[in-house]
């Protein structure tokens, strides 16, 4: 076998995970349907007044995105764990962090990106302005990868545990609070007539910070869980 360069390894893992996911398309759709449903439930619970809805829209979309990404975290490593692929992955000479990053990117493309794409439609349900919608998309684009990355640590730590699904939410949700605050805050600042730049740049900083550290931490967590 030729030694793979890091980028080609990354692309290989992403392509493999996407291919595997395409064979089980229902899983991807479930997350998306869950997201749409949760968001659509809020007006039914709160009432259809446009003013209230406009006000709560960013928070609702973000909380729903948070829950939806928790829902799919269990799948990030479990299939590979069950069929033994993960054990082989730990043995590859290339960097495990890069491999984990590949899995994170694939997870985001399957569970984060669809949410970003459907969010504007849901925003219309909440009577959001065009400008707010654009900021919502930008914030989600910056924020959802962070959710996948922090989630990867939780998924790796709870690998193979019973009740892992609830446990992973318990571990990861508190750590995601800054993303929620700045993500929802960005949209809110636009609707109140301020600039969203500071929120978005803080989200960007979080993205960079997690991009550097979380793949490595998740790799360590995988090693701990697989010992």
């Amino acid at each position, binding site marked *: 076998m030729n030694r793979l360069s890091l980028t080609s390894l990354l692309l290989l893992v992403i392509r493999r995970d996407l291919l595997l996911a395409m064979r089980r398309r229902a899983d991807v759709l479930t997350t998306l349907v869950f997201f749409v449903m949760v968001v659509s439930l809020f007006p039914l619970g709160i009432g259809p007044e446009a003013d209230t809805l406009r006000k709560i829209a960013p928070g609702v979309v973000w909380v729903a995105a948070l829950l939806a990404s928790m829902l799919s975290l269990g799948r990030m490593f479990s299939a590979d764990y069950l069929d033994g692929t993960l054990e082989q992955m730990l043995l590859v000479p290339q960097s495990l962090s890069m491999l984990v990053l590949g899995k994170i990117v694939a997870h985001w493309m399957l569970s984060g990106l669809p949410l970003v794409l459907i969010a504007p439609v849901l925003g219309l349900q909440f009577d959001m302005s065009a400008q707010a919608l654009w900021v919502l998309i930008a914030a989600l684009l910056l924020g959802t990868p962070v959710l996948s990355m922090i989630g990867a*640590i939780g998924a790796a*730590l*709870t690998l193979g*545990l*019973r*009740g892992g699904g609830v*446990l992973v939410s*318990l*571990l990861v*949700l*508190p*750590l995601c*609070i*800054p993303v929620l*605050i*700045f993500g929802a*805050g960005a949209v809110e600042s636009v609707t109140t007539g301020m600039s969203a730049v500071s929120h978005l740049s803080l989200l960007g900083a*979080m993205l960079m910070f997690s991009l550097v550290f979380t793949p490595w*931490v998740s790799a*360590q*967590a995988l090693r*701990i*869980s697989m*010992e």
Partner: protein
Amino acid sequence: MAINWFKYSAPSTFYGLAGKLVPWFAWPAALLFCVGLYIGFFVAPTDVVQGEAYRIIFIHVPASILSMFIYLIMAAYAALGLIFNTRLSAMMATALAPTGALFAFISLWTGALWGKPMWGAWWVWDARLTSELILLFLYLGFIALQASIEDTRRADRAGALLAIVGSVNVPIIYFSVKWWNTLHQGSTIKFTGTSMHIAMQQAMFTMLVACWLYVIAISLVRVRSIILERERNTQWVKELAEIKQ
């Protein structure tokens, strides 16, 4: 005199040492609790602004301070255990977590009971109260993770990693909550810190020291049980006086 610290990092030696240390922390803690409460209730004067309700701070502030410190100490122990592979520090981290969660709970409870007469609401989304709540969640996550892993080595190491990630996140969470709070013009607890009467400061400080000693004593007792459980198959445990009888 050089003390061989590594000698005490072995669970077998530490078990005996901890047993001897417990009374030296427990009794001063009890004494200082009494002294602190006496100063707090009988010596410290009534606050001009808040009346008698301010006396809640003598338990609220030490509990809040300790709940945060315990998390950091827990993470430090966990990191030590992860890096140097010392079993004892991992056990200390496990022993500290329930007490930390408890202090976080006390801080929230007393904060609510203080908030009601002061702001007319049991709960306000004040930056400090909110961070305290998130801290409680972090503790619960740590405890839940360790409880659900049967293999103790994996439980130690997984918990350690989570505690370290959590402690990196704590300042980020704190500042984001603070920012969120100022953005929404939430209420903040303002206590006239500079004009605090000397007796109030004494009471608070005494209570803080008492809580510290209490935490040390209770976690030493707890870590002793953990040591026994984990080392149950070793010879030294079988030869202990408590077991032989």
